[in-house]
C-alpha cells in the first residue's frame, strides 16, 4: 500500500547501525524526519492495566523493532510498526506477550484494530493518536502463538500492517500475521 520506501541508509539509521552524521547531506533531512517520527512512537509509555504485576514480573521486556523504515510520510496511511515485548525464555503455550501496534495515519479520524484476538470486532480495540504526527498506537497483551489482524481506519477502511507479513484473507484483501 505504500508508494514510498526509505533509502537503505535511512533504514540503517533507524536500526541504529549508523548515525545522522554518517548520512550523505542529501539524505540528512529525510533521516531527521524519520528519527522524529520514531521518537514520537518511542515516547509513548507502555501501560498494561489489564495485566497483573505477577504476570508483569514474568515478562522480561525485550523490544523488537519491526521495519520502522516502512514509514511513508507522504501517504495518508504511511506505515505501521509492531513492537513486541516478549519473554526471552521459550514461551510456554499459555505465555502472554505484550505487543504495541503502531500505524501512521495523519488524516485518520479514528483507527482501531481487528483480528483473531478480538473476533474481528472493529469496535473494541481502538488505537490512540499520539501527538500531532498522526501516529496511532495500541498496546495489547496477547497469548503466545499466531494472530491475524488488520487496522480499521475511520471504521470503513481495512488496512494491513505494512510492517508485518500478510496472507490472502480470502476476500481479495490481506491480513497481517503476527507470530509471538
Amino acid at each position, binding site marked *: 500500500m505504500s508508494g514510498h520506501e526509505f533509502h*537503505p541508509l535511512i*533504514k540503517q539509521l533507524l*536500526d541504529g547501525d549508523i548515525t545522522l552524521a554518517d548520512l550523505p547531506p542529501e539524505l540528512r533531512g529525510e533521516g531527521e524526519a524519520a528519527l522524529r517520527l520514531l521518537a514520537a512512537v518511542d515516547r509513548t509509555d507502555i501501560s498494561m492495566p489489564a495485566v497483573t504485576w505477577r504476570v508483569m514480573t514474568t515478562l522480561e521486556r525485550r523490544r*523488537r523493532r*519491526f*521495519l520502522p523504515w516502512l514509514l511513508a510520510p507522504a501517504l495518508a496511511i504511511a506505515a505501521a510498526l509492531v513492537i*513486541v515485548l516478549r519473554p526471552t*525464555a*521459550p*514461551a*510456554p*503455550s499459555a505465555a502472554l506477550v505484550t505487543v504495541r501496534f503502531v500505524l501512521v495515519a495523519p488524516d485518520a479520524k479514528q483507527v482501531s484494530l*481487528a483480528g*483473531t484476538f478480538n*473476533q*474481528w*470486532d*472493529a469496535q473494541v480495540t481502538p488505537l490512540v493518536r499520539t501527538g500531532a504526527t498522526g501516529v496511532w498506537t495500541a498496546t495489547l497483551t496477547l497469548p*503466545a*502463538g*499466531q494472530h491475524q489482524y488488520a487496522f480499521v481506519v475511520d471504521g470503513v477502511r*481495512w488496512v494491513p500492517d505494512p510492517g508485518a*507479513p*500478510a*496472507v*490472502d*484473507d*480470502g*476476500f481479495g*484483501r490481506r*491480513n497481517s*500475521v503476527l*507470530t*509471538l
Partner: protein
Amino acid sequence: MIALLALPLTLLSLQQPAGASIAQRLAGRVSPELASLVVQLGTAASARGLPIDPLIEKAIEGSAKGVPAERVATAVRLVAMQLDTAAGALREGGAVPDTLVIAAGEFAISAGLSNHDITALARTGASVAALTVGLRVAGTLGAMGVPSAENIGLISAKLRSGQPTGDLLSVPARVQAEISRGVTPAQAAAGLERAAAAQARHGPPPVHPTHPSHPPAPPHP
C-alpha cells in the same frame, strides 16, 4: 434392527452439539443464511475430525469486513476444502492429526504452502504439538516471501533439532532481522537452516557463566 435404527440417531445426537455450538457463536455476527451454511459445513467437518473454528472465524471475519454473503460463503467453503487437504497431507506424512495441527496446516496452505510441503514437515516425525507450531511458522515465512524449498528446509531442520517451540516461534523475527541486513528471504532462511543443521550435529553452543571483570568491591564499614 434396533441397533441399526439407533446408530443414525446416535450420530445425529453427536452432530447436534457441534451445530448448536456453531450457531451460538455466529448468532448476531453473520446473516442467518450464512450461519446456516457454516453450521452445515461445520457439522460435516466435525464428523470427519476436522476443526470448526477456522470456518466460524472466516465467516465472522468476512461479515465484520462487510463482504457480501456469497463471497463469504465461497471463502468458508475454501477453508473447509483446505482443512481436508491439510488433514490428508498430514496423514500422508505419517502424523495422526488433531484439530489444532489441521488448522495450522490450513493456515499454511492459505499462506501459499502446498500439501507436499505439509507432508514433508509431517515426515520429520516431530510431535503433533511441535508440528502445529512449525506449520504456523512456515506459513508466516511463506507470507514473508521465503520460497518453499528454503522454508521447508529451515522448519524441517528446526523440527528435527527437537528444540523448544519457543525457538520455532522466534524464527520469523530472526529471518526478518537477516532480511533487514540486506539478504533475500531465501538467503536468510538458508543461513538459519545451516545454523540449525550444524547445531543439530554438534549440539547447542556451550553456555559460559558470566563473571564480572572485576571482583565486587568490599562493603563499606
